[in-house]
């Protein structure tokens, strides 16, 4: 069913893992890269079901425990629809953080001896696994089965046969659960093991589970102690029938066992003879049934009986305790699931209980104020609400789109919730620091953006070809101007540049580029640097074909040396919500196949920048229908007119937020030289000012 389950820290150390089938560690690495670090394609879906992430043939679901910095990831084949893994994740999170609470709090955590967790996990899986499509069975339904069964199984073996006929109805639900072989569990000594056994036992038992346990029963007293209850109780039942509510017959279920039971009934006398030793061959089925009945039976009377039975032996108390613990664990799992269900509907904010009395409120307020100044305050949702709202409006004033601002504030909130402020740090300061960190993370590119380095490596070597850059954008944002700035920058580095007039639509566009090229070639002639020329086919032609022709021209079509190092393609400006014009971009991307596609966005635009960036990015798909550049679409943004907005550079954030594409250049003036790379620290400073 599952392929793997891993518990890892945010620092990347795997604390516990279980692998059912070999899963490449790349799968989880790409989950971390895409979702946690790049925060790409993540819908805010806290509370309800855990979000899913698909990679190759796997689906990954995860949940995290922020306070201890743990991530729980489950990996399974995408073909399966395992709705119960949500519950599994929740239960594992709660149990693991509880079981290893002390270790997780230690400062230099590098390793946890978590072998003990294996059985707990196995038990959980068995309890929760309801197959690939079914909804997990409700705890209530389990209870229902238990309640149903008692009436059927009140009396001695003689009547069991008759009871069995009544019993089947509750049974059908049972086979879903696979019950572990009890003897295996018994070998393990730790209390946790006891838990797990109990967890295993409590769900509706199945016949096959009880079978292995029966043989074990005979040889040792210890085993009898644990497994014994079934048998002993059966005997005991004869004595005090009312005490037991056994569902034994129910679990045996089928017609076949019932007929055997009838045989057992015939051999009642034999059994009596073998009483002390254990189960007779004939009694097997009955005993099996008894076991399941006993284990499934939550009645306290059973437990007591157990203890009585075992008291003579050393292990008795432990078995008894084991069963209680077992019951606890089971309840616990149910409680975890129930509470998570409850929290999915209502928000999880834990409001501290209102201190009663005037004095108490006053002191708590004073300490709260004091803490706010001195630090060491654990932040609650209420504490964060107001300063975060302030922070958000501050971002909006900086021209950050509302969508991006909201995402940033939520990421800061999740970062800081239940977090303790450092000493002598106020909430505001903590929020500012966290926001600066979030902005840095969003603006920092994943890989380096050394354009010159890319160009030199492309135009050198055996597979040399011209480096193709194309520029897209909405009307009037400064595509041609930015293009000529880039051309100037490349010329300074002594490249041979071919400028392609891909705007075959707007009158004057070609002439405009011609002027730029004339100026640039004059400049570069004076400075004795690179050369630049214009490639144009006039108006009315298909831009994609022009671009392709230009690239072939630059490569010199295989006739010796290539003529140009870099091809810069200008395109017609288009409204991002004009489907007809936008769709022609796809063809353009495929025919010209640029190494880099840069989109120009102006710093002046506000909320619309998000839509612009998204719509342009989604047009650039390759022939297989995949977005180019690893599913991002474009390679970078050029933000023009940055000199006109002062410190309201929020557009940077909005556009990067919308697409995850980095900002490569900033246009900061009217001259050819006014092109800058992005300094993340500078941008963050301006935004936080």
């Amino acid at each position, binding site marked *: 069913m599952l392929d793997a389950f*891993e518990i*890892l*820290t*945010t*620092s*990347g*150390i*795997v*604390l516990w*893992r279980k692998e059912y089938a070999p899963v490449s*560690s790349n799968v*989880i*690495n790409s989950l*971390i*890269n895409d979702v*946690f*670090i*790049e925060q790409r394609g993540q819908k805010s879906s806290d509370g309800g079901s855990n979000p899913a992430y698909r990679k190759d043939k796997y689906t990954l679901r995860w949940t995290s425990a922020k306070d201890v*910095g743990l991530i729980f990831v489950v990996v399974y084949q995408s073909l399966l629809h395992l709705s119960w893994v949500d519950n599994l994740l929740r239960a594992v999170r709660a149990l693991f953080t509880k079981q290893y609470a002390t270790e997780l709090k230690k*400062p*230099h*955590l*590098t*390793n946890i001896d978590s072998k003990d967790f294996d059985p707990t996990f196995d038990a959980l899986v068995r309890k929760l696994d309801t197959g690939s499509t079914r909804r997990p069975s409700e705890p209530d339904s389990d209870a229902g089965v238990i309640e149903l069964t008692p009436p059927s199984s009140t009396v001695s073996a003689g009547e069991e046969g008759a009871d069995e006929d009544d019993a089947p109805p509750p049974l059908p639900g049972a086979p879903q659960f696979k019950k572990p072989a009890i003897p295996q569990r018994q070998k393990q000594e730790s209390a946790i093991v006891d838990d797990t056994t109990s967890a295993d036992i409590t769900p509706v038992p199945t016949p096959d589970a009880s079978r292995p346990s029966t043989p074990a029963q005979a040889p040792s007293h210890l085993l009898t102690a644990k497994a014994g209850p079934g048998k002993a109780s059966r005997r005991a039942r004869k004595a005090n029938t009312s005490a037991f509510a056994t569902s034994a017959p129910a679990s045996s279920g089928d017609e076949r066992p019932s007929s055997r039971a009838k045989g057992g009934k015939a051999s009642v006398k034999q059994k009596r003879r073998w009483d002390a030793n254990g189960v007779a061959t004939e009694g097997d089925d009955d005993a099996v049934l008894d076991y399941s009945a006993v284990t499934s039976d939550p009645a306290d009377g059973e437990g007591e009986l157990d203890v009585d039975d075992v008291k003579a032996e050393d292990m008795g108390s432990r078995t008894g305790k084991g069963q209680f613990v077992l019951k606890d664990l089971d309840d616990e799992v149910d409680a975890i699931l129930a509470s998570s269900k409850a929290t999915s509907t209502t928000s999880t904010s834990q409001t501290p209980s209102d201190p009663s009395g005037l004095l108490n409120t006053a002191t708590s307020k004073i300490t709260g104020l004091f803490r706010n100044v001195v630090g060491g305050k654990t932040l609650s949702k209420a504490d964060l609400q107001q300063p975060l709202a302030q922070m958000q409006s501050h971002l909006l004033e900086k021209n950050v789109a509302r969508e991006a601002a909201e995402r940033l504030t939520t990421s800061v909130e999740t970062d800081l919730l239940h977090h303790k402020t450092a000493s002598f740090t106020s909430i505001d300061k903590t929020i500012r620091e966290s926001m600066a*960190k979030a902005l*840095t*993370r969003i603006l*920092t*590119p*994943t*890989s*380096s953006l*050394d*354009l*010159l*380095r890319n160009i*030199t*490596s492309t135009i050198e070597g055996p597979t040399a070809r011209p480096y193709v850059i194309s520029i897209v954008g909405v009307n009037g944002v400064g595509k041609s101007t930015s293009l000529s700035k880039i051309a100037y*920058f490349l010329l*300074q*580095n002594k490249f041979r540049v071919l400028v392609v007039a891909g705007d075959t639509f707007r009158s004057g566009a070609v002439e405009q580029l011609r002027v730029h090229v004339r100026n640039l070639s004059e400049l570069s002639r004076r400075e004795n640097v690179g050369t630049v020329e214009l490639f144009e086919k006039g108006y009315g032609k298909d831009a994609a074909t022009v671009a392709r022709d230009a690239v072939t021209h630059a490569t010199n079509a295989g006739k010796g040396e290539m003529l140009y190092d870099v091809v810069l393609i200008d395109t017609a400006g288009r409204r991002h919500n004009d489907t007809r014009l936008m769709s022609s971009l796809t063809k353009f991307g495929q025919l010209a196949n640029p190494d880099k596609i840069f989109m120009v966005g102006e710093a002046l635009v506000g909320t619309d920048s998000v839509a612009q960036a998204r719509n342009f990015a989604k047009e650039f798909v390759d022939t297989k229908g995949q977005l180019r550049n690893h599913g991002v679409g474009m390679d970078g943004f050029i933000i023009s007119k*940055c000199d006109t907005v002062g410190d309201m550079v929020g557009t940077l954030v909005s556009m990067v937020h919308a697409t995850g594409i980095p900002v490569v*250049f*900033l246009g*900061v003036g009217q001259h050819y030289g006014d*092109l*800058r*790379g*992005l*300094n993340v*620290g*500078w*941008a963050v400073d301006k935004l936080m000012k």
Partner: protein
Amino acid sequence: MAGQSTLESWLTWAFSPSISAILVTLIISLLSPILIHFYLYRKAQSKELPSFLLLGPSGAGKTSLLTLFANGTSSKTHTSQTPSSALCALPSTIRSTSDRYRSENDTSSQPQFLLLDTPGHGKLRHHALASLTTSTALKGLIYVVDSAALSSSAGLTGAAEYLYDILLLLQKRHTGAKTSKDPQALPVMIAANKQDVFSSLPTQMVKTKLEEEIARVRATRSKGLMDSGVGMEDAGEEEREWLGEYGAEAFGFGQMEEHGVEVVVVGGSVRGEGGEKGDVEGWWGWVGENL
């Protein structure tokens, strides 16, 4: 009521000019600063553990190395998102410089140090740069590279650019020091990890490849565009932005010694072939030397 009256009587005594009240006041006023001093002193002292910083591109094996140094065995790891730290002790076979003359058989406690792990992902390198500038007790940097990934041009460029950034930061730290007293020199060890992998480059090759690539990075960086953050007034300080010997065509790690940065390349592997223990003796040796 009863509580009120006791409080009242207690207050009356506290403000009365009786000898006992004065004595108690004196004792409190004299002792409290001493106690506070001891408390703060304890707290501050515990932070002074020498530390080493783990740097390097993502997937090089930093976190694995951390777990290996801390626990003796390397755990399975994934991409890190947050920095972490671990308390490590030198193994008994390695002697730190200060303990050089200690007997081989002296098995008393080995010096402890703190190993700081940083995420190598491109977006999260600010953690590393921050801890580089803020940590006070830093004794050295361990730059982990995947020797197998260096044979591809993308892996080499990634590793070299990050190393370039760090070395430039160290150089600026040295040249930009305000006082005449140099900041403490930080040695750098380039740990050529994954030497067990078949396609990995030998240690010497790792060194030359990185040097060549840094020279190329340096060349394009010097020709690249200015940052948006740089004002016009300090545009002329080109020399400060040049790593190593100014104007030199080739780059060698030897050029860094002028700036108080000693760079060594040591090979090893966190994981051994076929479940054997990795080869980390060289790295331990370097840590011992610099502790």
